[in-house]
């Protein structure tokens, strides 16, 4: 007569739960392109795909403020503010990171392309 429960049953359960977890992985690490959005005075002035940057370059969203763009990262290099917290924020390279020069109202924000729409309607 078969028993109700055997040790092998635990193996079965473990395998299935492991499979369930494995299936969750694609949901978490979808390949996305790193995008940096630069705002000045609340308006977007530049959207940069950091993965596609071939050569580093700098630009000035406002006089006195300089931002450097390289492959996979973006950061303030100089600013006219007093405390230079923006420059001190260092390189931004991950989803969700932000750096801001508050007195100048300049913000750099990183987002992954996951949320970019397939198509725009206008």
């Amino acid at each position, binding site marked *: 007569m078969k028993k109700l*429960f055997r040790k092998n049953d635990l193996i079965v359960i473990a395998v299935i739960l492991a499979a*369930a977890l494995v299936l969750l992985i694609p949901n978490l690490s979808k390949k996305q392109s790193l995008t940096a959005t630069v705002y000045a005075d609340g308006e977007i002035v530049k959207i940069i795909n950091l993965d596609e940057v071939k050569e580093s370059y700098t630009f000035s969203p406002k006089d006195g403020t300089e931002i450097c763009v390289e492959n996979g990262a973006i950061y303030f290099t100089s600013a006219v503010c007093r405390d230079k917290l923006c420059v001190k924020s260092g390189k931004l390279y991950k989803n969700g990171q932000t750096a801001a020069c508050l007195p100048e109202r300049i913000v750099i924000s990183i987002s992954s392309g996951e949320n970019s729409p397939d198509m725009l309607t206008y």
Partner: protein
Amino acid sequence: MIMKEKRNITRRVALVGVMGALALALSYLETLIPAFPGFPPGAKPGFSNIVTMFLASCSGVGDAFFVTLIKALFAGITRGFTAMLMSGAGGALSTAAACILLRSRKNSLGYIGIGIICAVCHNIGQLITACLISGTPSLIWGYGPLLLLFAVITGFITGTVLKVIMPYLGRITDIKK
């Protein structure tokens, strides 16, 4: 000899008939359970699988598949073509697993393990069918983890129920399992 065979055949037909009706009744009761949010509609606990598992172990493989077929047809008549395919695929996989596991002499798995495997097979069959029908393979990632988890729970229940009622059912078929 002939009398015995005839009586056996009659018994078998009666058994399959009763079991089939029971399976349909359980199927129908399950559809009354409101669809759980987050689960694909049509993914039900699968209590009717207790019937197919019983037939797989105590009667013939053919009988078990016959009831599976009836369940699928019933689903088709009452809930539509999609439901028939889902029930058919899930049932076929689950019954096949039940046949293999319950008819083997080895005792490596308990009823709970077997119940879980059958439930998992049932859900996998349904999931694959849903993907093919809707043309969206992404359903696997979307519903897969949830259905597997669900199957562990329902398999646990059906396996336990089967073990509990097996001594009584065994008497119907004169088989000690």
